């Protein structure tokens, strides 16, 4: 998976920088789109995955879903940070400002990001155990409600400068641009999947080692 992520991601970057046609309005800065939007969608996917695992935990009571949900939220927060940073740079070059409080899309994404950032404060303020797992799962599930609101906000906004690319009539871009976007999105999702699996394996190993250490100390 790591190799596939690297290959697809490098292909996506090469297509975005060398092959995709330049936008007539924005010029070279439009190529930020091929990184910024896939990163944002990947952040949504990670938060959604974390919520799904949280639901599985509440449904089945299986504690392994707690670590999976936590890891997905962790990844979502990293991709969320990147979304805010890359979006801010793009806003500076396209709109002349680093941030616009009047844009519902931006503010709702920031709220979503801060909501999940607070997840860690909640999680680490509680003692380890099934109670913490349940409360964290409920919190992660509440956050997922913000995802469709954040995603649809741009379509509900009346006065916006944030562009709408995906409409009911399909993507508002050429076939070359759309293909480049799809490759970049696939690469970003594969990267997130690779990092998620590595992070999860590391956390599981950490827990096993802690159990082993405790067994050795007690035995």
């Amino acid at each position, binding site marked *: 998976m790591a190799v596939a992520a690297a290959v697809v991601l490098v292909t996506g970057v090469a297509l975005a920088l060398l092959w995709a046609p330049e936008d007539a309005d924005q010029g*070279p*800065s439009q*190529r930020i789109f091929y990184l*910024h939007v896939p990163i944002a969608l990947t952040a949504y996917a990670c938060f959604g995955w974390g919520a799904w695992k949280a639901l599985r935990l509440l449904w089945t009571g299986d504690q392994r879903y707690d670590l999976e949900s936590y890891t997905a939220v962790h990844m979502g927060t*990293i991709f969320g940070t990147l979304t805010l940073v*890359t979006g801010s740079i793009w806003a*500076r*070059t396209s709109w002349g400002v680093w941030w616009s409080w009047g844009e519902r899309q931006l503010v709702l994404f920031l709220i979503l990001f801060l909501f999940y950032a607070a997840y860690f404060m909640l999680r680490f303020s509680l003692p380890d155990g099934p109670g913490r797992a349940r409360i964290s799962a409920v919190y992660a599930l509440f956050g997922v409600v913000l995802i469709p609101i954040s995603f649809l906000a741009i379509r509900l906004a009346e006065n916006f400068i944030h562009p709408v690319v995906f409409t009911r009539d399909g993507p508002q871009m050429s076939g070359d641009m759309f293909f480049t976007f799809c490759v970049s999105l696939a690469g970003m999702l594969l990267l997130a999947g690779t990092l998620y699996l*590595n992070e999860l394996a590391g956390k599981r190993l950490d827990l096993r*080692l802690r159990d082993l250490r405790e067994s050795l100390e007690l035995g």
Partner: protein
Amino acid sequence: MSSGEKYLAAVYLVVLATVLVYVAIISAKLARLEREVTELAERARERRG
């Protein structure tokens, strides 16, 4: 290099740097886990006598 190209380069560099930092953190964590495994293996051997 135009202003748009500078911002474009900045975005790609930020993402690349983040991925590299993340990989470095994962590598450091892996090294710590390896140290812990070695330490636990030694303790287990000592207990066996």
